[in-house]
């Protein structure tokens, strides 16, 4: 008896111990690279943060680079290049990478959560001014004549260029230096299932009503969408808040679940900030980062009834914003509008899945929940999904599309998803001159070269590779492979668009859309530079001194905060930001 108990205990213990080593391993090093130890080829090591955007884009870029430089000698006695990739989600982002970068074996880094000034203060990044400002003509065989710097948006360029001097008119009088490049564009938002909209007739007609029967955006009676113009990408989508929530109500009684998201992550927090940006527009929203300009949408006072509904509002006069009073921008009306939007979702349990508030639902699981909802029998199809723009690529590299293709409803190449333009607050905001505004933090992703490379030939090789990755062709291929964009300006030709998934085309088409503005949340204002972490969007958008920063949690009735109203939340946000300013950012949050 004793022996059998001992045996059973041992077996149980072994099983438990085995669970500690059971984990997914996405790390791949160059050990199986046949040229890794070839002394006749120059070796270059690249470290890649694999989360979200994966590594397929990098694998293909490396293939093209190695082919291009197959017969070029970077070192004496060697010909060609072999690029070894180390790709992982561990140790490839944030402060832990910065701390180890100088002694790392990798030469080139593609990383996330890298605060530029933390990187430069650590002395971990090499000066790459020459390749950023130098002509791309040589590396592109004459196809491009500009430089990488020419492709920057002004805000992102000013942030990444250290030490430049400008005159009162903003003209540059002294150039600065570059130590890193922005890596990928990473906006968050609401994504929708186009196939589901087609199947269930969820598109809205010219009267704002769902068709109710299977149809497509090509229907003659289709509505204009938020841009107020027929024949554009958003035809048939809800134009206003009223239409949007009427559609959600329609979904709930017609066998469609409106929303799902990952309860373990606060994606709605960032995604809802896009509505704030969209309401304000590029100029007003960017004030939050430039801290220079005139604010025109600041709320002065609010009144509410005993149910917490806002019954009245007064606005502040146009206010000159500078570094001393930029906390006033927490009063922007776009924030209030977004809280109203969030409240209508959060307080209606029929609008979202139970997983949406479960910390056991990770982003990967949530992607599966969303993708499987329409293809697996017995599940309620889900229309909308709060996530980051990289979600389709991440789901693909995790095998979700492949796994679900067995149900015969398509894979990544055939399934259709779109990026929902936020509906407008009121009917009067729907017209042919309105604009869509998207903000982009790039997740503080950046590419840099290790500063401690002593071999001049290897440094030249690393710089050549990095510059190669920012040629137009490589930027386009990045978009083709990931269905996302790079945070620089470039065109995407029709033949490359044709190779992309439906979702990728939807994302890429925004680049060429004259009515879409991108706001990169970067600036070289001293307050921003010295407190970049305080401008981290989830905290910056909705953080306060009293309530949960995630609007979907704060407004979720079951969270025990039902007594907190929008007015209280709004005032708490304003109070907290003012407190941060008053204490010089030596703050509690």
């Amino acid at each position: 008896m004793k022996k059998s108990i001992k045996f059973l205990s041992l077996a149980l213990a072994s099983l438990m111990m085995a669970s500690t080593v059971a984990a997914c391993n996405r790390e791949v090093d160059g050990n199986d690279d046949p040229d890794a130890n070839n002394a006749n080829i120059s070796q270059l090591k690249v470290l890649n943060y694999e989360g979200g955007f994966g590594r397929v884009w990098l694998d293909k870029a490396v293939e093209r680079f190695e082919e291009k430089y197959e017969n070029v000698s970077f070192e004496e006695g060697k010909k060609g290049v072999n690029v070894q990739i180390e790709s992982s989600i561990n140790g490839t982002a944030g402060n832990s990478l910065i701390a180890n970068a100088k002694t790392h074996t990798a030469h080139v880094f593609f990383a996330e959560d890298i605060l530029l000034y933390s990187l430069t203060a650590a002395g971990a990044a090499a000066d790459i001014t020459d390749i950023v400002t130098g002509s791309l003509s040589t590396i592109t065989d004459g196809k491009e004549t500009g430089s990488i710097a020419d492709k920057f948006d002004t805000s992102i360029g000013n942030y990444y260029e250290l030490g430049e001097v400008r005159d009162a008119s903003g003209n540059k009088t002294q150039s600065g230096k570059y130590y890193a490049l922005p890596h990928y564009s990473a906006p968050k938002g609401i994504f929708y299932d186009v196939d589901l909209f087609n199947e269930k007739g969820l598109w809205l007609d010219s009267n704002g009503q769902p068709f109710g029967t299977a149809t497509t955006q090509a229907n003659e009676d289709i509505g204009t969408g938020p841009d107020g113009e027929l024949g554009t990408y958003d035809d048939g989508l809800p134009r206003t808040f009223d239409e949007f929530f009427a559609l959600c109500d329609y979904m709930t009684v017609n066998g469609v679940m409106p929303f799902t998201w990952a309860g373990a992550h606060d994606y709605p927090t960032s995604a809802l900030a896009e509505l704030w940006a969209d309401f304000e527009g590029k100029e007003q929203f960017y004030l939050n980062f430039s801290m220079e300009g005139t604010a025109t949408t600041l709320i002065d006072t609010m009144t509410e009834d005993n149910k917490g509904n806002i019954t009245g509002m007064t606005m502040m006069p146009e206010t000159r914003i500078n570094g001393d009073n930029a906390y006033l921008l927490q009063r922007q009306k776009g924030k209030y509008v977004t809280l109203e939007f969030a409240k209508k979702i959060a307080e209606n349990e029929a609008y979202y899945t139970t997983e949406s508030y479960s910390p056991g639902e990770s982003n990967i699981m949530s992607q599966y929940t969303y993708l499987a909802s329409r293809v697996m029998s017995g599940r309620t199809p889900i229309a909308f999904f709060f996530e980051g723009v990289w979600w389709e690529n991440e789901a693909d590299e995790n095998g979700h599309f492949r796994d679900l293709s067995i149900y015969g409803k398509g894979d990544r190449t055939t399934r259709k998803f779109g990026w929902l333009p936020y509906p407008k607050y009121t009917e009067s905001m729907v017209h042919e001159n309105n604009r869509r505004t998207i903000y982009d933090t790039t997740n503080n992703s950046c590419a840099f070269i290790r500063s401690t490379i002593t071999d001049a030939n290897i440094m030249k090789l690393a710089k050549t590779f990095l510059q190669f990755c920012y040629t137009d062709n490589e930027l386009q291929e990045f978009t083709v492979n990931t269905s996302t964009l790079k945070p620089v300006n470039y065109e995407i030709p029709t033949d490359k668009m044709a190779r992309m998934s439906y979702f990728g085309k939807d994302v890429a088409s925004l680049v060429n859309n004259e009515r879409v503005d991108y706001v990169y949340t970067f600036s070289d204002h001293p307050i921003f530079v010295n407190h970049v972490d305080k401008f981290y969007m989830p905290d910056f958008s909705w953080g306060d001194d009293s309530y949960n920063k995630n609007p979907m949690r704060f407004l979720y009735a079951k969270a025990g905060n039902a007594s907190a109203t929008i007015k209280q939340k709004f005032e708490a946000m304003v109070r907290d930001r003012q407190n941060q300013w008053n204490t010089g950012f030596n703050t509690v949050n």
Partner: protein
Amino acid sequence: MKKKKEKLEKESVVGSFLKKIFRPVSDGMYDVSVFVHNKLPKKQKSATHKRVGETVFYWAGLAIPLLQFILMYVVVNINSFILAFQSYEYNIMTGEEVIEWIGFTNFETFWNAFTSNPLMLGRIKNSFVVYGIHLFVGTVLAILFAYYVYKGFKGTEFFRVTLFMPSILSPVVLVMIYIQFVEKAIPVMFGVEGLLAGDIDLKFGTVIFYNIFMGFGSGMLMYSNAMGRIPDSLTEYAQLEGCTPIKEFLYITLPLIYPTIETFLIIGLSNLFIDQANLFTFFMEGAQNSGMETIGYHLFQTVFTERSSMTSFPYAAAAGLTLTAITIPVVMTARYFLNKLDKGVEF
């Protein structure tokens, strides 16, 4: 029994065979070593020389761990102390960091928050709640279970393995299993909603339950080891005198393991503002301003996140020093009164 005897007999046959081969070899090597020892000149070590040798050996063994302690603990804490009086900024022209002395500004900021910020007051409350539950529920249950195991009642081995096993597994793995259990299994079994999705009090209670349950093992082990040192003669005498298990627990076991209990109480009190109750393991940054935050979680969150910069560290250092200044007198006072209750029994 017969098999065992046969086994022994087999071994001795093998053993004697091996001895026949290797004994002459080892005897020969011994003779050689004796011969060499007798032939070599013998050095007479002085007492001083011997003491120096011992001292060098002693310090050579200690050098590396001592150096590590100095670098990783003393220097780090001195640096943290200095950090509390500084501010970090970045020179926007060069990207280099600029460090300035700002006196007690960081302390002032933290103290204002500590005494008036609603979120901070909530964190203090939660820290006390976590400590109180650890003290009155966790510690009590750990002592009771330890006594149960010490007395060898039914299921002792099962409890010993089951309750201690969480201590040897990764907390991240355990939390993941627990989350899936309370979010997926319990709703299916009982038809209720997941325990971590809704009401904030239920969420917090679910997290605290995990902390209590997983903390059993180490506490139970320490207490049962302390109980194991009680002389058997004492307990046998008590039993002969008609002492019931409960009376034995109250009048013999508890007083004799009191020093161990006192140690754990002091340690628990000193962890009051450090304990983050595994909130980060459960929710990562998602527990921020959630109503569940403890001070320990908040301070960890301030400096740990991958996107934090050095600009946050001085404030966190000042917060740590302030909390230390509060904790030390409390702990010393508690220790004084707990020592008074110690009967000073030795065995």
